[in-house]
């Protein structure tokens, strides 16, 4: 069993959480949903902080909770990064970072401290008390503290809400690398569609305490999120000048389709392609799945424009890629 099964029921006042969820025990699962949907509550149930929750929590072969078992939170060590950071006010930043790390059982590898400190830009803060930290600084310390505890399952509750875009741009790839190399499964709560689309291997949609859907980010976000979400990863070689062996991420909104081959332009690449699928998307848009000589592409276009030019399933087009970022 290499999947994660979570079936929890919990009532909090008038709010009822009733989640039934199975996800692979690897990669990053994004939990997405409106404010008050129960995302934080779900993470708390998984971490073992809601002792009133009933149900099953199984991480691979390890049963954290079922009808007869309730593993206490400190033995789950589900590195939960709280939405409100919860740094220890009586400890320095350094001692906060080391709190979990010093408690890692002897048979587990202890993560390197300096990498995390460098990455999160905490070097200058180590001797500081937590009380004077700015919002973003506190969030970074909280992330670092959780990472350094070497968790079996990382639960991130909007960990980057107060972190600026530039820093986010550094932290996210690290988290990504982390979850790919260490194979720690992760659950990320985020309101930021960009982050979710970029990082997540799959998305779980939560609303009013229930799972409303689950699947690949592209498919799932279509029903709930703005258009920034869909993207594909391509071999860089499809773009003139792209270095072989590397990949590019192309967002669906940055792909347009033309009937005739366009002339010289600011576009990165023009690829002949066939329209393999047309899905509805929000606000009168359509998501085209294209096959460009074996390379899958997504294009987000206006439904009405499509109709006006008689474009549809099976059409042969020229896919124009306007932007791409290294993946």
């Amino acid at each position, binding site marked *: 069993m290499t999947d994660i099964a979570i079936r929890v029921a919990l009532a909090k006042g008038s709010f009822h959480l009733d989640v039934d969820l199975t996800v692979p025990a690897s990669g990053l699962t994004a939990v997405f949903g409106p404010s008050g949907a129960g995302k934080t509550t779900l993470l708390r149930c998984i971490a073992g902080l809601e002792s009133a929750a009933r149900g099953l929590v199984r991480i691979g072969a390890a049963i954290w909770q079922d009808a007869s078992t309730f593993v206490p939170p400190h033995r789950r060590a589900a590195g939960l990064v709280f939405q409100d950071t919860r740094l220890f006010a009586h400890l320095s930043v350094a001692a906060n970072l080391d709190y979990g790390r010093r408690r890692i059982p002897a048979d587990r590898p202890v993560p390197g401290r300096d990498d995390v400190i460098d990455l999160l830009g905490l070097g200058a803060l180590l001797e500081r008390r937590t009380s004077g930290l700015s919002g973003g600084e506190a969030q970074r310390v909280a992330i670092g*503290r*959780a990472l350094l505890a070497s968790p079996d399952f990382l639960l991130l509750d909007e960990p980057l809400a107060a972190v600026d875009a530039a820093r986010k741009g550094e932290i996210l790839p690290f988290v990504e690398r982390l979850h790919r190399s260490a194979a720690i499964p992760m659950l990320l709560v985020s309101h930021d569609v960009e982050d979710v689309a970029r990082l997540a291997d799959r998305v779980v949609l939560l609303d009013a305490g229930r799972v409303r859907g689950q699947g690949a980010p592209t498919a799932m976000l279509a029903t709930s999120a703005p258009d920034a979400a869909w993207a594909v990863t391509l071999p860089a070689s499809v773009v003139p000048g792209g270095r072989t062996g590397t990949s590019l991420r192309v967002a669906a909104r940055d792909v347009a389709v033309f009937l005739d081959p366009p002339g010289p332009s600011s576009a990165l690449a023009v690829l002949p392609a066939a329209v393999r699928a047309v899905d509805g998307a929000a606000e009168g848009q359509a998501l085209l799945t294209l096959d460009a000589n074996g390379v899958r592409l997504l294009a987000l276009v206006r439904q009405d424009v499509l109709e006006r030019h008689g474009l549809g399933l099976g059409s042969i087009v020229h896919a124009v890629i306007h932007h791409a970022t290294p993946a």
Partner: protein
Amino acid sequence: MIETFAAGGWSPLVLTLKLAAVTVVCLLALGTPLAWWLARTRWRGRVAIEAAVALPLVLPPTVIGFYLLILLGPNGAVGRAFALVSDQGLTFSFAGLVIASVVYSLPFVVQPIQNAFESVGRAPLEAAAVLRAGPWDRFVSVAVPLALRGFVTAAVMGFAHTLGEFGVVLMVGGNIPGETRVISIAIYDHVETLDYGYAHAMAAVLVALSFAILVLVYGINRRWARAAP
């Protein structure tokens, strides 16, 4: 005055400080788990326990002393139990004084610690739990340091109250020089016998000493607290 102190005059002070120190240690050892439990239980009956803890306060010390005398005495429940393990009686002994002081000062120790634990709340303890800290570990490494201010208040109150305690100690201790004759009794005796000179001097020493200890403790507490808000 000098001669008075020299003639065994210091022994009550030394005994008192010893009693206060031992009592504070016992109070903290006993009061901390009680305060922790009171701060965290959701049992509705806890208000009764809270009220019971405060009860020793409402009776005059001498009267509490009187009941303790019965309870700790050879015919009392506690006294009888103690007789099984020791051939020394509890009353008129240092051990008896400690028990009496602990009973009498318990509310002053439980209350501030309980309030401090309640102020700490669950949030930091949950944070510690997901960082692999077990219940005892997070109690020691998170709850206690965050409640430090309460502990300082508790220790100061327990210490000061034991120094000044008198009625209970007088009743249970029996005013035996070197064993149960604490400074408050010594001062009291000298007031009673109109030896105001000794009483003033002894009171001044006690006040000065206590003041020094308190300033020290509060000063250190301040330093700690300034950092953590």
